[in-house]
């Protein structure tokens, strides 16, 4: 089976940065979001990442940093072999794992 590797930033914004490496199945054409959803189902359901529309690229919720570039996880193809570095969106308050505070201020409860 072909594999891909992801180094994913874990923990909350208050903790020192740490990364966890995941090895995931690779299929031609698969995206980073596919891999993150696979990790949530098969490795760690607590992995925090925002996404909603999954494939249409209309909700824009899955914006993260991949190998230092701000991109959509749903639009970024997985690479076979080489490890990709996944970080939360820079310049936003870091909440947990790949989730940042992207809600407009008036849509927050607290």
């Amino acid at each position, binding site marked *: 089976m072909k594999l891909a590797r992801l180094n994913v930033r874990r923990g*909350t914004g208050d903790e020192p940065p740490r990364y966890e490496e995941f090895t995931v199945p690779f*299929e*031609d*054409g*698969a*995206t980073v979001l596919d891999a993150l*959803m696979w990790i*949530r*189902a*098969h490795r*760690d*359901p*607590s*992995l*925090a*990442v*925002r*996404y*909603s*529309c*999954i*494939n*249409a*690229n*209309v*909700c*824009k*919720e899955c914006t993260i940093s991949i190998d230092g570039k701000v991109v*959509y996880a*749903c*639009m970024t*193809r997985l690479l076979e072999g080489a490890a990709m570095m996944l970080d939360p969106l820079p310049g936003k308050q870091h*909440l*947990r*794992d790949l*989730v940042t505070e*992207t*809600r*407009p201020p*008036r*849509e*927050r*409860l*607290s």
Partner: protein
Amino acid sequence: MMHLDTHVLIVGAGGAGMYAAISAVRAGADKVLLLDKSLVGRGGATIMAQMTVAAALAEESDDDWRLHLDDTLAAGRGLCDEKLAAVLCEEAPIRIREMGEWQVGWAQRDNGRIAQVTAPGHSRPRCCYVDFLNTGPAVAATLRRQISRIDAIRRLSNLTVTDLVTSDGAVVGAVALDAASGEPVTIAADATIIATGGLTGIYRRNSASANMGGDGYALALKAGAELVDMEFVQFFPIGHLAPRLVGMDPIMWDPFRYKLGGRLLDGAGREFLARYGSDETDAYTTPRDIASYAITKEVAAGRGSPHGGVYLSFEHVPELALRAAFGPVIERLAKNGIDLARAPVEVVPIAHYHMGGIVVDGRMATRVPGLFAAGEAVGGANGANRLSGNAIPEALVFGERAGRFAATAKAAGGWNGAAAAEAVERIRQLSDGRSGDVTAPALLDQLRALMWDEVGPLRDAAGLERALDRIGAVRAALANVMIAPGRECNASLADWFELRASLAAAEAVTRAALARRESRGAHQREDFPDSALVFSGSQRVALGAADDIFVSGGPP
């Protein structure tokens, strides 16, 4: 614990929820609380709409809402709730023109009239659009802009309503999980509107966003409301299958077919729709239920394409015509390795919309005082098969009504903290985390697989019975679901509630499908292939005394 108090509570902030918020304030509500599991106005189905919005605007023909109603009833195969369908068709033009005033940007002809195209099942050019593939995002953005200007609307993102709170038989508010903190929140409301959309997320192949797992149906059932037509799930016939395509909705091929026709071909490159009674020689005319049935039968007979669908080909269309019609989209396809002039793509039916839903009257009120519903969550208007273009008008028309009537309804009764205690305690217990041998996303995947395999486009009694057993097994596993420690942004917590709701929705669909021993519209039984007169009415689903899901309304 945080406690909120509102006049009108709206669960779900897609097109129906946002319109309900606007109209509730217009009707006098001083406080409206609009919640979404995802981000307000960005999740759900509205933003995914590709192109067509049906309304008898009569911009390009001598149209009338009664003609739109005729087409809607015909598409519904005799099962439409005619009153709801009439409301939908009569008020669609009002809502569509109001969206125009709010600068949604309906596409116009050179003469300044709103452009309207003919979609399958419509007798006239009736479907307006904003831009090819961009109607939904424009509708969502327009409504987001409107609600942001209204101070009486409080918007909250990342809140999952886990339970409605009932007191003396009326809904008096809700308990929600705040994803950011992992804490329960209680909400007192004079009226509550369910605008959570449908349930297509419980199918393996779907065009749903992440939060379309049938939550609203589970909430409504538990609160004592009835559901109707639950067996009718619309399978969109030509969902994209291969090659893998990113950044585009899998239902994107519909606009291509409106403009250029295109040919559906089996794995050997032969046309097959004619054998199912549909002639597409001149135009794209096959209704969705018939096309989905035909494709599924071809694949089952071993005549499919390599990935298990059929081919959609535009190879006969001159390259210049393709470019003229789709411009930059052709480049986006090229980046995905797709060249329509040279090779076909593979398509397959995917779960796209749910005709069934919550039983409401013309005010969008359920039989439970204080509880209303709007949008796709409502059942009945589309019967056994929805006409193309009716989903966005349904969101807007029913949303507007639900907000208006919820705002002016008599308050359901006072808040009852004791009635909320069990739901609050459940969130607290689960948010402490617990060990387990399975994850909620893995169980959801199992549920999606079994719904696809046994309760999909082709059904029979044996498969539906197997589905009930398998749903029972997944429900039993709910007790062993692992929940990770850490309350803040802990996705495994919201997943548990999503799975619980999806199981109720799945069982409602399956029991209704088993009870309907005939084929009609989107419900196709291999063991009962013909439509039967005794089933010319709708079936309802409700909770029994022991919280069992039961079906009524079929023949004795």
